[in-house]
């Protein structure tokens, strides 16, 4: 999809695209459009982040002041728009919200969120399962926001979700990936793309998610609420790419003891080596 970078990619950096539903993405960063200062900052941050998939929310129109539409800031020839059901606390509202979004955008994609309460914004597992089932039945491609519970991820995949999106930590909390082991197990059990969604505070969080083997990372606040959002957008882009390449390259195992990089033989003062303790 994004042409310019592909041409310059040497074979030893080649990667497969991320496939979600009918969509093909060469960027593995999905970026939200909330909390930016204005449409111009949104547009610039999305461009710098290199993302090809952006999330939006569904809300009542402002009946008084009529400003520009967010859709004016998002070039749909360039970005796939992924509407969310943020703010829904039961399956029925989430399904209604998804239907409204589909009517505006003429897309089957939905980022399903069924939340438990407004303080924690943690996903409600039962409501999430119910809504996933119904939306799949209605022909949606469901990317489902969930906890990092591996078995729940399996159930959501079985119900037909096209992507499972575990929270690294609570939405907007910036705590990063709190339970990398749960994400690792989830990655082993689930075959559809696993996209770490929520909790990313800084670039290293993105890198960690990608190094674990996540298919992608979805974030919003980490960029939009950074002191310099555009600079952070670049940092997140690079971290996503770096983490992905590190995953593909295969990290060395962690070892307790040192392992010298320079040869042990040929030292000019070989006799000086201390006795092992």
């Amino acid at each position, binding site marked *: 999809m994004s042409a310019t970078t592909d041409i310059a990619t040497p074979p030893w950096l080649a990667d497969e695209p991320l496939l979600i539903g009918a969509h093909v993405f060469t960027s593995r960063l999905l970026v*939200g*459009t*909330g*909390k*930016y200062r204005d449409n111009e900052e*949104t547009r610039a941050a999305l461009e710098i982040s290199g993302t090809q998939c952006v*999330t*939006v*929310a*569904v*809300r*009542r*129109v402002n*009946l008084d002041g*009529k400003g520009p*539409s*967010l*859709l004016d800031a998002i070039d749909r020839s360039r970005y796939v*728009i992924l*509407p*969310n059901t*943020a703010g829904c606390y039961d399956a029925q509202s989430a399904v*209604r919200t998804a*239907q*409204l*979004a589909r*009517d*505006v*955008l003429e897309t089957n994609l939905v980022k399903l969120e069924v939340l438990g309460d407004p303080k924690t914004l943690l996903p409600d597992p039962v409501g999430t399962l119910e809504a996933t089932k119904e939306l799949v039945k209605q022909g949606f491609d469901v990317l489902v926001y969930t906890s990092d519970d591996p078995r729940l991820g399996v159930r959501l995949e079985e119900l037909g979700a096209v992507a499972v999106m575990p929270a690294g930590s609570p*939405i*907007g909390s910036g705590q990063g990936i709190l339970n990398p082991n749960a994400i690792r197990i989830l990655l082993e059990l689930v075959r559809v793309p696993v996209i770490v969604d*929520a909790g990313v505070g800084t670039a290293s969080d993105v890198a960690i998610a990608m190094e674990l083997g996540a298919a992608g990372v*979805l*974030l*919003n*606040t980490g960029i939009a609420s950074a002191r310099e959002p555009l600079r952070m957008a670049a940092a997140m882009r690079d971290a996503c790419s770096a983490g992905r390449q590190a995953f593909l390259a295969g990290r060395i195992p962690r070892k307790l003891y040192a392992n010298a990089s320079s040869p042990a033989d040929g030292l000019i003062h070989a006799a000086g080596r201390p006795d092992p303790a």
Partner: protein
Amino acid sequence: MLDYGAREGPAPKETMTGCETIGIELNGERRELTRTSVAGLVAQLGLRPEVVAVEVNQTLVPRAERERRELASGDKVEVVTLVGGG
């Protein structure tokens, strides 16, 4: 299931031009307007039809059906659009 008729509000009346006034609940607020279709409401509100979606009594009115779908007194109408979000 929903008691559309039970809400208090002015009864439909004929005006001098023969247009009927209805009372609906629009995005949670009572509003009176000349009887119209969903498409007519979107136009009356000055909204760009391609950036909104409309639900009447918790059921989506697809874009293609907005012209046909007439509003009635007591209808609960939601008009939504897309905003920034994660």
